[in-house]
């Protein structure tokens, strides 16, 4: 494995007395896609929330060599980590273009020029031509697939080093899911590192380089994605019959 951009070790996250994530250690190598698969309620969203500073946690989190546990979400965005959350969390009353512009808020505040942002905007439009057509439309009126594109586009506007994706396939038709995952793979090939959370295990493992299986808050399996695709336990539990 090449050097890890994100390294989580011995992470615990609790809601009150209930520990939803226990002893989780994982890493995302630079320029690779790591995926965490697991059933509903396994703690996948909780794990991402803790990494992104939205939920308090115990354990260590290293990002680009820096210890970042306890950092504010805003600080992590500035360092180059962005999350596309399960619920998208778009600004529904604002236009597609405004949502994208706000995606670059952190960069504008750290003094990057408007021109630099416009460049990134062009890149996002190249990835998702649909968004370019929908610029003046209110985000709340987009279809499910378009919303997911906008959520990913908004995250990319921050020019992240690491993209955290929480179930990008949720509620989307298989074809659109394939498109989105293909886009993620394309982004990886440009050097972006990705932590992909998915319930759709087959699609996730086919896209990812490395995989983890999370069950009731704990990691039960890990390995190269193509190995996991052929692992009997994974096939029995998550892939089913072809």
């Amino acid at each position, binding site marked *: 494995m090449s050097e890890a951009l994100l390294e989580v070790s011995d992470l615990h996250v609790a809601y009150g007395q209930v520990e939803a994530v226990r002893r989780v250690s994982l890493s995302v190598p630079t320029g690779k896609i790591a995926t965490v698969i697991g059933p509903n309620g396994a703690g996948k969203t909780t794990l991402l929330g803790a990494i992104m500073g939205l939920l308090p946690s115990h354990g260590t989190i290293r990002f680009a060599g820096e210890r970042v546990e306890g950092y504010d*979400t*805003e600080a992590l965005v500035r360092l180059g980590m962005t999350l596309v959350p399960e619920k998208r*969390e778009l*600004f529904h009353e604002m236009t597609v273009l405004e949502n994208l512009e*706000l995606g670059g808020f952190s960069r504008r505040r750290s003094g990057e020029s408007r021109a630099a942002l416009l460049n990134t905007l062009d890149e996002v439009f190249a990835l998702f031509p649909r968004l370019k057509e929908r610029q003046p439309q209110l985000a709340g009126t987009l279809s499910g697939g378009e919303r997911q594109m906008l959520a990913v586009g*908004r995250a990319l506007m921050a020019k992240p080093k690491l993209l955290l994706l929480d179930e990008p396939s949720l509620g989307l038709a298989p074809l659109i899911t394939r498109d989105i995952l293909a886009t993620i793979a394309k982004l990886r090939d440009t050097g972006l590192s990705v932590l992909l959370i998915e319930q759709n295990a087959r699609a996730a493992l086919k896209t990812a380089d490395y995989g983890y299986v999370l069950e009731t808050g704990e990691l039960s399996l890990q390995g190269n994605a193509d190995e996991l695709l052929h692992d009997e336990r994974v096939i029995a539990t998550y892939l089913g019959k072809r």
Partner: protein
Amino acid sequence: MDATIAALLTQDGLTNGSIYCLLALALVLVFAVTRVIFVPQGEFVVFSALTLAAFEQNKLPGTVWLLIALAAVAAFADVLSLWREPKRMLRSMAGTSLPAALAALLVWGVASAQMSFAIQVLATIAAVTAMGPAVYRLAFQPIASATVLTLLIVSVAVHFVLTGLGLLFFGAEGVRTTAFTSESFTIGSVSISGQSLLVYAFTIFLVIAMGLFFKFTLFGKALRATAANRTGARLVGISPNFAGSLSITLSAAIGAVSGLLIGPIATIYYDSGFLIGLKGFVGAIVGGLASYPVAAAGAIFVGLVESFSSFWASAYKEVIVFTLIIPVLLWRSFTTTHSEEE
């Protein structure tokens, strides 16, 4: 009542209503971004009028001490909470204590050099605006994720503290500032004062400026984003504290301008803020603390009701205005569908 009296009352009502309108907009803004029902809004109005009055009387405005007190306490709070992280501590101070301290220096300089009226006006706006970040930092930042009720209780407490500080630093005497203009215009049998026209013009200007700010600037959009979706805003790097502080600072600036506008019309005491703010609040409630245009219209309506009831039943003027809130609340409780808390 004849037409002349009606025209006069309308003019009066619109003048006060314009000022309530500005306050209502500020209240909607602060509530949308921070969920704080900002009771101390009226104190900014009062501090502004009192500051300008002191300048006019060639006295050192108590604002200097108020600002120094806020700067010192905010710096102390930063040291206590952030001494382990000197960089963040300094950044917080640069956004909170530093502007307050600089504004204190400015007010002192303008007062001792007896500068022109225009500069006194600008210094007043700067001084009151600079209180915004400190008020947010001290009162609301530490409890930013508390419930609306807790925030309201703290908001009431801040109102009492600021009123008390107002008495301490400005004294109990009422002030009236000189009008910006003593011109008046006559249309038919109705005379319109230049001061009223100025109030209308300024209100319209500020409303348009706010609209442009929210529509076209990055910070304006960031405030809208925070109001619409807090988590979404954090995920693009907009800190709730940044947005909260900015919204209260804007409301301080609006309060400052309102104070300058109301100063020549009404006698302002250290404790006049509550009633003034409450009338803006009635307007804001009409808009459900959510709609800017409805809040603005509601506040202007409050001004008109106040003006006409002072003619018909002058002793009951305030009672009538505040009784307005009951039908409004009834109407709202029947017409609004409750949106879920995030």
